[in-house]
């Protein structure tokens, strides 16, 4: 745990990494919504959005501050049974997730900004 940035900042940082990575996966799903044989992906537990479950139990010593890192591997997350051409993407469901995820990301960044602004104002004394 950093001396200057407490647990909240770390949780928010991981949340922002999660949201950015998830957008990439969702963008891939949307781009391939009509591609025959394509299977939809998402991050594990993303549909519950429970970050706490995503954090690996043992801290990863490779990370700079020894913090536990998110499990960001993508999993198969079909929207429903595969269509005739093998594609299992529902473009409308994916777009809902894209919108939700973008909102989540922006709120997390706003919360991070509030944390940093608070620290900066304490440092500057005004």
């Amino acid at each position, binding site marked *: 745990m950093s001396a200057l940035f407490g647990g909240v900042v770390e949780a928010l940082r991981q949340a*922002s990494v999660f*949201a*950015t990575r998830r*957008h*990439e*996966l*969702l*963008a*891939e799903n*949307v*781009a*391939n*919504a*009509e*591609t*025959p044989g*394509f299977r939809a992906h998402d991050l594990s537990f993303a549909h519950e959005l429970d970050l706490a479950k995503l954090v690996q139990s043992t801290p990863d010593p490779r990370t700079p501050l020894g913090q536990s890192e998110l499990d960001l*591997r*993508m999993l198969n997350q079909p929207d429903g049974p595969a269509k005739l051409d093998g594609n299992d993407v529902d*473009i409308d469901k*994916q*777009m809902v997730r*894209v*919108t939700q*995820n*973008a909102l989540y*990301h*922006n709120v997390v*960044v*706003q919360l*991070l*900004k509030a944390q*940093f602004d608070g620290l900066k104002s304490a440092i500057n004394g005004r």
Partner: protein
Amino acid sequence: MPHEALNISASALAAQRTRLNVIAENLANANTTKTVQGGPYRRRVARLESEAPPFASLLPDQQSLRGVKVTGVASLPETRRAFMPGHPDADHDGYVEMPNINPVMEMTDMMAATRAYEANVSAIQAMKSMAVKAMELGR
């Protein structure tokens, strides 16, 4: 790397636009009985495939994401015979060899391609909003 997401969404925009062009060509030629090659117009279908982004090999540990591409446009050989005795290209029995194009099916495909195009535009806008928001942290 939201940059990668942008490339993926952009690839889909190009692919769907190509697909729309093919569909438009089908609709325009739904009744073309004589082409340069001789014979009626053949229905064309764009083939979509996922493709890996160009620099995927440089990122071995990260599962690379795939955009989409039109890998080819196939010309389907089937035609249909319509009974049109007054038509200039009618044969002795009054049948004309017409393109095997069903406008309803083409319109359905066109709507799907349009919707896919718009969805990818929305995905890009979402990504832009996230990037702009992240840049506010530096202000």
